[in-house]
């Protein structure tokens, strides 16, 4: 393992010096010198030097997974809530189908639940070649212990080359436990997946630094290659009733499940019925709404559009709306088809949570608000006047 500068290629341009996050590189006699005490092998300099290709990182293999060739097929974890398959799982089926086709391998869906045989059969129509369904009363609700145990067993038995799951509260809670257990490579919260067909590698691209930097992650020596994938980025699978496939049902012995946590209560808390991470449209309010009562203007527009209600940290901190509505780095990351930012100035942290939305409309009094830098349509105006008028206009035209 090591990092190396090829002196004949290095021209001393210092691009790598600026790219380095830990100040490990200096230019000495017009050549880059890397301080190995400081370097954390993040590869930022390799990227910065792609024009000259003077810096290389070599890796000593840990041996990794034995018999990598035994690992085949793309598996998708199917998330369910109260027996209903989550929207993000259809997106995983859509994307998983594409990856499997590229690799000329099968798409396998893994479902954990109670009395969900019908849903298991339906997954075939949504693109799976094979469904492995684990059935038990004790699998009805998500629990880290049981889900990590069963999905790890599934990985050991089925040996998928790739495993995808939604980057949801559930997926991001227990999938890292599966990865820890099977020593697989896990990439969190991907917004793009590609396949290197020749090398049979998954390329998972994900935002880091609150969306300021994108990183493409690979897992060459270990299997499976696991990725959690952000909501609303991948296209959902479309139902095709002509598809056929195989459904395998495992009736899990409850005794075999070692569940240490107990769910005492499940409380639904969202003021609208729309889950903001799965919504196609989000209307968000910020400090510019002025006072708690005015958040009603945001909610009314959201209602008439069939949208979810979001909020900036300022609105949440002021106690105008619960934290579960917060969009941004310390709240939720969303990418709806339409994001309407009302009275939100656009802090770096807020924009990190919504800048990948397909279309952004910002309404703000201040013509210099940062939010306008990323808005497709910027409306310089008073939210107090624009919002009620807009809601009325939609009510009339949509006949609501």
């Amino acid at each position, binding site marked *: *393992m090591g990092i190396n500068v090829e002196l004949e290629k290095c021209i001393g341009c210092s691009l790598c010096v600026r*790219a380095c*996050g830990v100040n490990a590189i200096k230019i000495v006699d017009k050549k880059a010198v890397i301080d190995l005490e400081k*370097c*954390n*092998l*993040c*590869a930022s300099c390799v*990227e910065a030097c*792609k024009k000259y290709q003077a810096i290389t990182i070599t*890796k000593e293999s*840990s041996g990794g997974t034995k018999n990598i060739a035994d690992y085949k097929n793309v598996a998708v974890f199917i998330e369910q809530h109260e027996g209903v398959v989550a929207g993000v799982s259809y997106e995983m089926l859509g994307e998983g189908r594409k990856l499997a086709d590229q690799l000329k391998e099968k798409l396998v869906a893994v479902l954990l639940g109670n009395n969900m045989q019908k849903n298991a059969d339906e997954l075939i129509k949504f693109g799976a070649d094979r469904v492995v369904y684990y059935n038990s009363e004790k699998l009805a609700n998500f629990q*880290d212990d049981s889900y*990590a145990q069963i999905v790890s067993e599934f990985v050991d038995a089925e040996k998928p080359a790739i495993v995808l799951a939604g980057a949801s509260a*559930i997926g*991001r*809670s227990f999938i*890292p*436990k599966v*990865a*820890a257990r099977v*020593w*697989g*490579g*896990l990439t*969190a919260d991907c917004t793009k997946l590609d396949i290197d067909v020749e090398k049979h590698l998954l390329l998972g691209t994900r*935002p*880091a*630094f*609150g969306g*300021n*930097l*994108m990183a493409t992650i690979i897992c060459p020596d270990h299997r499976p290659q696991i990725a959690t994938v952000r909501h609303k980025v991948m296209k959902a699978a479309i139902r095709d009733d002509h598809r056929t496939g195989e459904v395998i049902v495992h009736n899990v012995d409850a005794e075999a499940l070692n569940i240490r*946590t*107990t*769910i*005492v209560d*499940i409380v*639904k*808390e*969202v003021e609208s019925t729309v889950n903001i991470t799965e919504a196609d*449209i989000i209307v968000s309010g910020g400090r510019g709404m002025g006072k708690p009562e005015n958040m009603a203007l945001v909610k009314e527009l959201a209602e008439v*559009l*069939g949208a979810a209600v979001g909020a900036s940290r300022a609105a949440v901190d002021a106690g105008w709306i619960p*934290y*579960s509505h917060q969009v941004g780095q*310390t709240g939720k990351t969303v990418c709806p088809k339409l994001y309407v930012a009302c009275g939100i100035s656009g802090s770096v942290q807020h924009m990190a949570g919504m800048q990948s939305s397909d279309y952004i*409309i910002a309404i703000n009094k201040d013509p210099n608000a940062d939010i306008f*830098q*990323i*808005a*497709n*349509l*910027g*409306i310089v105006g*008073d939210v107090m006047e624009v919002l009620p*008028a*807009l809601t009325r206009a*939609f009510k009339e035209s*949509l006949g609501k």
Partner: protein
Amino acid sequence: MNIVVCIKQVPGTTQVKINPETGTLIRDGVEAVVNPFDEYAIEEALRIKERVGNAVVKIITMGPPQAEEALKSAIALGADEAYLISDRAFAGSDTWATSYTVARGIQSLGPVDLIICGKQAIDGDTAQVGPGVAEMLDLPFVAWVRKVEEITETSIRVERMMENGYEVVSMPLPGLITVVKEINVPRMASLKGKMRAKKAVITKLTAEALKADPDKIGHKGSPTQVFRSFVPERKGGGEKISGEVPELVSKIKSTILDLNVIR
């Protein structure tokens, strides 16, 4: 009761700027801070200590020697002991190798009742090390904790944030939780605390001290590697209009209708 808090030193990201010429992140002169989510973890540990009385709060981090600063700021807030896992051999660790290493570090501290982590670090944004450590130590685990309802010597009852609300979950101890921002408002360091931090002794833990398996640490123990990193293309600002309200409303309305997103 022994409480261990895992923290990470990160760049204060609000100051992250992009060099327009090279398109890379400017990190020179960026102040290093304790990951904000870990501040909630530290605060919750201190509150639990205040609640149960007889408890020791130990802070552990993995990072370069300068991460000592992060540990000192935790001492200043009231933590009792601090440990720095630091060794060249850990360079290039991904979340798997980090989970393994931090787990080894925690094991070296003796008996532990509760481990608290922030839900994620704001530089990597992976949220994988908390659950990874729980798995490596074979401990029960609850993510996204927004409230500790009750804690005893042998169990804890917490509220876990989900997309549409929350779940009340109880768990036997020892166990691990990751906390979200909503859980508390972190205190400021007192003058006395800052004085204590100056004098505090930070225990350094090397790969050898942890008896870490060389195949499982650093680059070698890491299944994943960065293939490339790049700065995303910014969406340039689109059209910006001002004018009378009816005009603005009709522009917004026609734009939304053209998008064809209303069901």
